[in-house]
């Protein structure tokens, strides 16, 4: 009997010692330690976590081999090889704050790049700021990060979620699609609530005659949408809008399409490009698709995009790149730009967090989705161009192609500096520069 208790105590003791041992990792000035945080398990793993990790790994391997086109041809970050540590974003915001602090204080990483979930982004940003360490958010969508706070050490290399829905509304206008009423189906949490609010607000400005007929709020992760589909069929709105994503969106399409919900009406799926590869020909044609940026098939031709597509094809044969792949790449390239700018200023040494944070303010760089500029949030928040298109199954290539693509310049769908996104939409997009 006593051996069992002792055994447990020994396991525990080993655990404690082990964590102390790992704290003995030394600072290495020849290597840049980067922690990359994304969902490795749970509901966002398939749709956003795994592709982000795929993209990040491909870019980091290429960086360490020095095989990127100019101006990214230096090995790693300014000659420093990148050593990456993966952290699983699953487990809740509390765990993420602990893991961030562990990464910086125990494992001595030099910067953290990550976070898909808005809740996690909001939770970890103050922690990084307090530790005075560089945190680069690469995926989460909430505008609140820099609209409600001022940070010195936190940056976001992708545009926030408001532009997705402004672009969707503008697409309708540009394509001459007028609708009398709208039915909405969004997951009942911040992402769904904010997306619908932004789309509803944008549509109210651009097509005031469209009325909201029904608003449905399925639980996040519900997976069964029979009743919602019946309700939408019954209310029969001319346009259905949904910000659903991942497994939920795939289930919704699988259950809605056979019942004819997506026929004879306009269907707008604001962030859906990532479900096109798995769904394949099960995705009906003619659905208006967004990718939260000029990602994947929306990316306009450029040397860096050509390089990225080729790199991904070599590393993952048969993979169709979608938005998480692109955001991971733009995050890494933005970080690289900032670090190399800091190293140019400090004489080529490995930069400190202060030097990196100072260098990163307001930078602009070219990435696979196009030109990115940290124009909002006092030079901490990125803006980028957006795009929308329609789905069309290509039986020869065996993939869903995006056709009828329209691009929207960054200044057209992002608020100008100093204006909150919600206010900007409510006021009718003052200062927007659209062609």
């Amino acid at each position, binding site marked *: *009997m*006593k051996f*069992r*208790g002792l*055994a*447990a*105590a020994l*396991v*525990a003791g080993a*655990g*404690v010692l*082990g*964590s102390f041992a*790992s*704290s003995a990792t030394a600072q290495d000035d020849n290597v840049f330690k980067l922690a990359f945080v994304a969902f*490795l*398990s749970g509901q966002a793993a398939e749709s956003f976590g795994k592709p982000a990790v795929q993209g990040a790994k491909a870019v980091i391997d290429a960086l360490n081999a020095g095989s990127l086109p100019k101006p990214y041809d230096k090995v790693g970050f300014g000659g420093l090889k990148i050593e990456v*540590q*993966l*952290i*699983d974003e*699953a*487990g*809740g*915001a*509390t*765990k993420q*704050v*602990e*893991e961030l*602090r*562990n990464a*910086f*204080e*125990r*494992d001595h990483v030099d910067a953290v790049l990550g976070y898909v979930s*808005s*809740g996690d982004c*909001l*939770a970890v*940003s*103050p*922690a990084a700021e*307090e*530790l*005075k360490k560089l945190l680069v958010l690469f995926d989460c969508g*909430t505008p*609140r990060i820099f609209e*409600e*706070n001022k940070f010195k050490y936190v940056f976001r290399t992708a545009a926030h979620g408001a532009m997705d829905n402004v672009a969707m509304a503008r697409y309708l206008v540009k394509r001459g699609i007028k609708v009398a009423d709208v039915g909405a189906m969004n997951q*009942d*949490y*911040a*992402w769904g*609530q904010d997306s619908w609010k932004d789309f509803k607000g944008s549509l109210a400005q651009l097509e005031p005659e469209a009325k909201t007929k029904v608003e449905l709020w399925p639980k996040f992760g519900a997976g069964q949408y029979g009743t919602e589909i019946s309700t939408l069929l019954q209310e029969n709105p001319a346009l259905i809008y949904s910000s659903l994503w991942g497994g939920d969106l795939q289930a919704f399409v699988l259950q809605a399409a056979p019942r004819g919900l997506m026929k004879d009406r306009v269907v707008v799926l604001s962030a859906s490009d990532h479900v096109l590869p798995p769904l394949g020909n099960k995705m009906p044609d003619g659905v208006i698709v967004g990718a939260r940026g000029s990602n994947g098939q929306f990316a306009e031709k450029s040397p860096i995009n050509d390089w990225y597509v080729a790199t991904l094809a070599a590393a993952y044969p048969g993979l169709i790149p979608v938005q998480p792949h692109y955001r991971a790449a733009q995050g890494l390239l933005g970080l690289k730009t900032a670090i190399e700018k800091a190293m140019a200023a400090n004489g080529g040494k490995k930069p400190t967090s202060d030097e990196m944070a100072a260098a990163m303010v307001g930078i602009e760089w070219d990435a696979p989705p196009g030109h990115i500029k940290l124009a909002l949030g006092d030079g901490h928040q990125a803006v980028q161009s957006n795009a929308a298109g329609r789905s069309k199954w290509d039986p020869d290539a065996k993939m869903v192609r995006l056709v009828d693509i329209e691009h929207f310049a960054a200044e057209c769908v992002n608020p100008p500096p100093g204006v909150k996104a919600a206010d900007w939409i409510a006021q009718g997009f003052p200062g927007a520069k659209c062609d």
Partner: protein
Amino acid sequence: MAGIVGTLAAAVIAFAVLAVAGYAMPNWLVLVATLAFAKGLVALGIVVLMRGGLVSFGQGTFYCAGAYAAGMAMRSFGIGDAALLVALGAIAGLILGAIIAPLLAGYRGIFFATLTLALSMIVYGILNKTYSLGGSDGLNLHAPRFFGYQPAGSQNAGYALFLFTSLVTVIAAALCRIHFDSVRGLLSHAARDNEIRVEYLGASVRWVNGINFVIAAALGGIGGALSALSLGHIDPDFAFWTTSGEFVFLAILSGYMSVAAVFVAAILLELVRSFSSQYFPNTWQGALGVFLLLIILFLPGGLGSLPLRLRPSRAKSARASMEKSK
């Protein structure tokens, strides 16, 4: 059972040890320990209930109430003092507990557990839809002051919060120990064994359980406020069933005999979770599950039973050495 003086002496010594340890520990361990103590307080509340035979799967309700009370006080009323915020958290938990306790008085066993779980999920749902409280994204808090003093720098702020948390923990633990050894506390044990006999002997089981529930709720509120201050962020996940389940796990892991075991268990769990996450980023959940199984299997009485297990062997070896020296 050392008596009140003994308990207070132990409390003072424990605080002194923690203060020194906190100074020597690396920064990341200070946060881990702070959070562990905050969660340990909630688990202590469950231990209080467990002694009476009830297990609540909804302590997340009070954890969340305490956290949001502290959060709203800081954001809407500008209250920045840690002691005040934690007191507000305790009061929030207390009031909510006092309201809910009579509703739950008639339930026992798994039905008590499921009803408390349902209540916490309703709170979760309400918070998810309350945009003014941040919805599912939650709210951020800034660093608190300690009796007027604002520590400079992340390391000092962390240590100050750890000291404050240790103080609150030690006081709560001492009070709980005193309660456990009191007549009402021992009545809980009796109620757990056989309620009908307790009623027959003239005590009220409703009162015993009610008071235990309110104490647990207050502890939950304190834990919530402390977590909110150390994380700087609150969100509705504080009321989600997995959070509540974690507290129940801590209570079972520590057993209901020793108060100190709750906090040792809390630190152990945080370290194992962090250790698994670092070495098994793809399978940390499975690693945690295996650890939980092993602990449940090999320590059926919880960590608190370890000292009792070691004692008989000491007595045996003492006797053996006495025989030898004869």
